């Protein structure tokens, strides 16, 4: 191959060429091809390097997008970009919500502020309405209703404030002031919508110009007597509602929503509006919703539940009152019956007059106190007036009270009256006792006096002494008639009692004699015993005589064992029988 006339050129400039000719070619090749090869290498690098491609694209991308828009392919571009933009937004929020929030802040801030302002304004308007209503008569009625139904007062006020009627609603093109749509409630007189819309727009412009309102805000509400025009602004169109009466602040929200809805539905038509209003006739249904839903709810002719509740309460109150009156009257009647049963009291009439109970009748001064009786059963003395006539009652308790008052029985004497018969019992001084019957018979109503269980003081003493004397026993030793010193002492004590007895007998005009009875036991001969017993009686009689008793007032007798004090079953019984006892006899003197 050494004679090969063709000299092969290395494709690669770095490849070694050994021959001289090769070197010359190499130079030539370099001279001819080097610039192109460098360009080629650079281009290849641009095509193959992602960094370089990105760099190139970034230079033309904005212009490319603008161009695409101008060519009318914006929609396709938006469509293509939308998913990426959406996911980019999501990713941004996921990474750091602050970034997007900061970016949106200038947009969101005013929107949120406006929304809050609107809400607060509605709140204040509600509050103001509630305040105004709270002071009127109607307000008081509503306050009562709030109490009755358990609703809050402001809720009730708002409920009643829904008394209004939206008579007309205009949809007005904001820029031209032309009416896009207009609805009117039945039987409402109306002016030409074109003129009204135009004038409303003119007034809005006038106000904006005159007061340099910020951000193009205009009038929100016009008030003409009972009529109000509420205006709600949208970017392209305005809604004006002509309202008769007082619409609640919440109605504003409905207008706002309608404006928003109209803008959504007719965005394109509004944008391109050139005076042709027919596309907007479809908005009538939106406007009508503002018109129809706001009629006042008609009052039902059926009585409301509270009427029944009220009537029920009234009936319950009436029943309660009647029960109370019945119960009260019953207590008073019972009281009057009790009064009638009282001794010394006669009720002739009972009634009610001028808020008082009137009780009339007859009353013995000695009868019980009707007021005290009243208080004891718990009735109010202020509710009663008594009209009593005085009389002499012949009831036994009254008679008894009267007898006690008049006769003044001494202590120990008891007086009772039954069926007009006055009975006494006890021991009374003789002078009181002796005049009792005469005095008692003068008391009206006393038919008879029984003194069988009352004795005089002398008589009582007479009986006491009699039994004292008769209970005295003096005993003697076997076969003896002599008084021991102890027996003598006993006789000394007995002797004055006997004297007193004899004296009482004299006072009582009685002949009294005391038998001194001598006894013996049954042992021994009866004749001896008789002598012994006589001796014992005599011994006592002598002793009493020594004590000063008149001899004629005592009579000593000996009865031997004929009247034993005890049956002689043992020595102790026999001892009892060896004694002297006393027996008293008193007789009334023979009547002369």
């Amino acid at each position: 191959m050494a004679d090969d006339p063709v000299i092969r050129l290395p494709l690669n400039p770095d490849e070694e060429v050994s021959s001289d000719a090769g070197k010359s070619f190499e130079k030539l090749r370099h001279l001819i091809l080097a610039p192109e090869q460098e360009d080629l290498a650079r281009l290849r690098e641009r095509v193959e390097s992602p960094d370089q491609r990105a760099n190139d694209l970034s230079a033309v991308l904005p212009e490319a997008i603008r161009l695409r828009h101008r060519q009318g392919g914006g929609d396709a571009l938006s469509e293509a970009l939308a998913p990426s933009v959406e996911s980019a937004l999501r990713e941004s929020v996921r990474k750091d919500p602050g970034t997007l929030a900061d970016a949106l802040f200038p947009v969101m801030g005013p929107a949120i502020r406006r929304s809050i302002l609107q809400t607060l304004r509605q709140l204040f308007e509600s509050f103001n309405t509630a305040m105004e209503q709270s002071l009127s008569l109607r307000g008081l009625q509503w306050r009562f209703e709030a109490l009755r139904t358990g609703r809050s007062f402001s809720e009730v006020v708002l409920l009643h404030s829904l008394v209004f009627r939206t008579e007309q609603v205009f949809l007005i093109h904001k820029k031209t002031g032309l009416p896009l749509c207009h609805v009117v409630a039945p039987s409402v007189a109306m002016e030409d919508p074109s003129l009204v819309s135009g004038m409303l727009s003119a007034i809005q412009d006038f106000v904006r110009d005159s007061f340099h309102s910020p951000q193009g805000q205009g009038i929100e509400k016009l008030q003409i007597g009972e009529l109000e025009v509420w205006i709600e602004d949208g970017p392209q169109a305005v809604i004006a509602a002509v309202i008769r009466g007082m619409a609640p602040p919440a109605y504003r929200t409905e207008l706002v929503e309608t404006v928003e809805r109209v803008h959504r539905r007719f965005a394109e038509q509004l944008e391109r509006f050139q005076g042709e209003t027919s596309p907007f006739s479809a908005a009538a249904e939106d406007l009508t919703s503002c018109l129809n839903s706001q009629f006042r709810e008609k009052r039902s002719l059926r009585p409301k539940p509270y009427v029944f509740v009220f009537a029920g309460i009234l009936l319950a109150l009436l029943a309660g009152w009647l029960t109370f009156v019945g119960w009260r009257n019953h207590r008073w009647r019972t009281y009057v019956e009790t009064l009638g049963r009282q001794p010394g009291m006669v009720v002739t009439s009972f009634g009610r007059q001028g808020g008082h109970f009137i009780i009339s009748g007859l009353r013995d001064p000695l009868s019980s106190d009707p007021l005290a009786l009243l208080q004891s059963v718990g009735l109010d003395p202020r509710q009663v007036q008594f009209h009593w006539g005085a009389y002499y009652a012949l009831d036994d308790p009254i008679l008894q009270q009267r007898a006690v008052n008049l006769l003044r029985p001494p202590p120990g004497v008891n007086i009772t009256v039954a069926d007009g018969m006055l009975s006494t019992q006890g021991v009374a001084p003789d002078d009181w006792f002796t005049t009792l019957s005469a005095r008692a018979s003068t008391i009206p109503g006393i038919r008879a006096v029984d003194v069988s269980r009352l004795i005089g003081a002398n008589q009582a003493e007479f009986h006491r002494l009699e039994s004292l004397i008769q209970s005295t026993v003096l005993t003697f030793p076997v076969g003896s008639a002599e008084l021991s010193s102890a027996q003598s002492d006993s006789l000394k004590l007995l002797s004055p009692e006997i004297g007193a007895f004899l004296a009482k007998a004299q006072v009582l005009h009685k002949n009294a004699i005391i038998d001194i009875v001598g006894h013996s036991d049954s042992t021994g001969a009866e004749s001896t015993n008789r002598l012994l017993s006589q001796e014992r009686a005599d011994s006592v009689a002598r002793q009493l005589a020594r004590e000063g008793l008149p001899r004629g007032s005592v009579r000593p007798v000996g009865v031997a064992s004929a009247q034993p004090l005890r049956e002689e079953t043992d020595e102790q019984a026999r001892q009892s029988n060896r004694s002297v006892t006393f027996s008293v006899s008193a007789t009334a003197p023979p009547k002369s």
Partner: protein
Amino acid sequence: MLQKKICMLGSFAVGKTSLVRRYVESIYSDVYHTTVGVKIDKKTVQHGQQEVTLVLWDLYGEDEFQKMRWSYVKGASGYLLVADGTRRLTVEKAMQLEEGVRQAVGSLPFIFVLNKADLSPAWEIDAKVEDELTVKGWNVMRASAKTGENVEAAFQKLTAKMLGE
């Protein structure tokens, strides 16, 4: 229904209101002029087969007491520019107003109405002025509120212009 907002412009006392009084429906009194600065009337025009409702914003003629409220012109589809043929000054004022409209809302179709045609002998304006304006591209019409001359025609012409003919 096709509706168009149009304005009536012209200096004080050129007879704007008189010009249209007999030809429009109105519910508002002239008091609105001096209070709000505008009065709204309505005029229905038959344009071919189509009925067009013109809502007419009759603006208060600017004077030393009250300024023109340019915001009222916003949204208008065209206007009648009115001057008094007997007062040359009103024509100059009309030219200023035309300039004002252009600055405020851009170019709008309009008809220049020279009122008081019935008083032609007393006019301060001659045909030369009218020609100049016509050359400028203005549609100039002589009209008379008193006789009603050209009033209806002015509305018709404006409507035609607004609808692009």
